[in-house]
């Protein structure tokens, strides 16, 4: 956590040109912990299954539902 808080403060100084307060560093560190566990790992054990999936695929699916 200490390392992540340091990363958080560095990000703040770089992009916000100010230090992060304690609540912000805790929040950012927590975000990094959660996302690295929940989103970063490959889906269902398959490598790079998202290589050719565009986010706009979602809207195509919604448009198809409108036609149904």
């Amino acid at each position, binding site marked *: 956590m200490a390392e992540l808080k340091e990363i958080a403060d560095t990000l703040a100084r770089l992009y*916000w040109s100010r230090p992060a307060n304690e609540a912000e560093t805790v*929040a950012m560190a927590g*975000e990094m912990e959660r996302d690295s566990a929940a989103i970063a790992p490959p*889906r269902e054990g398959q490598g790079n299954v998202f290589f050719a999936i565009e986010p706009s695929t979602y809207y195509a699916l919604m448009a198809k539902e409108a036609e149904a």
Partner: protein
Amino acid sequence: MSKLHPQSLAEAASLIRTGEVTSLSLTQAAIERAKTSQPRINAFIAIEEDAALAAAEAADRWKSGGKPLGPLHGVPLAHKDMYDRKGMVTGCGSKIRAGHVATSTSTVMQRLEAAGAISIGRLNMSEFAMGPTGHNAHHGRAKNPIDPERITGGSSSGSGSAVGAGVVLAALGSDTGGSIRLPAACCGVVGIKPTQGRVSRHGAMPLSFSQDCIGPLGAHVDDAYSLLRIISGADPLDPTCATLPPPDDLSADVSALRIGVLGGVFAKDVEAVVAGGLGAAMMALEPHVAAIRQATPSDLSTVAELANVVAMGEAGAAHFDWVRERPEDYGPQIRMRLSQSLAMPAPIYIRALQMRSLLLAEFLETAFSEADVLIAPVMPFLPPRSADVDIGASPEMNRIVSAMTMFTRPFSYLGLPVVTMPVAVSPEGLPVAIQIIGRPWREAQIACLASRLEHELSLKPFVPQVAPLAQSA
């Protein structure tokens, strides 16, 4: 009930149309209710008395001239403090926008004005619509009219409170992770989160471009749905708005509908009173539909985090310069939540968007495989006490947000339409509410089912309505 306190939008509009009441008298009565209730429930950020009375007088002159009347001609409403109206403040429940005067009118407000509705003021909300509890560091929290020690839910806190207290019959809110559904559930009223893209967001404050939905809260299904039909429809000013016509009316037959009660994560750790209320509602519904069975959702275990990445990533972008330059002007909790966006690498945010299409396809294939409509609780518990969830910028913030939005966020992320309605009363007199979830664009179907269920249950209003004025119209 007094003619100055009609019990439905249809009744209010009819009373004005037939001349039994004037818009001025109805609007004066609504403003009086707003003022009387304000010390107790803090539903309003601003009661706009002069503007509302001027609009009501204009409405009465219009009618006297024999001109055509819109479906809500002269009816007083109020809306969440996030919709631009030309020349008026849109404060977004914030300090940063407290004095922001809009230079044009949002599409939804234009449509309500074209329908003849009057706005009596700006309703309280979580700052910048971020917060499922309804707390606001600048304006104080709106309070639950059923029990002021309980939360209203957020972020459309004032909308839930004002409609729940009978100050107005309906109000617009907005929903990105549960912000219409939670206040509706906590305050014992109906809320509708439409399909992603159903309603134009032109002129509305943004939170998450991919998940924001504008929708109504109302005392009854009819009232909420009437508002939805008025505000829906294509808008060339919002390229994300579907070019579909507004949804159909509530005349469809529900007897052929197959109902799926969601299990899995939606049945885990649900308090007995909530499960019992849902069960009783299904028993009431059963004679009127084709079938009610358990529905198994696809794996939604990562949806909470995916939805949060999308929401906070996009909110962080919208607020980037303010967070950098004037962070002290945010409430501590909002500042904390917005900071999360800086810790999201671009591939993580984009992956969260990529997964949306996969998870939507899976959900439609599994949960809707043998059901036309799905049912789930809104929350696994009753409306919490304010003191238990007023944690400011505590590290517990994420846990509280996750607990409150556990059952609502998945449908925001997937973009599905949801009607929320009360179905039971707990021993403490608190509402138990359910979500009625449809496939994309099926607002009419779920609203018809909700209307049927509302008729079968015939729940009494949760609070004694604010006392009406004397009988002069």
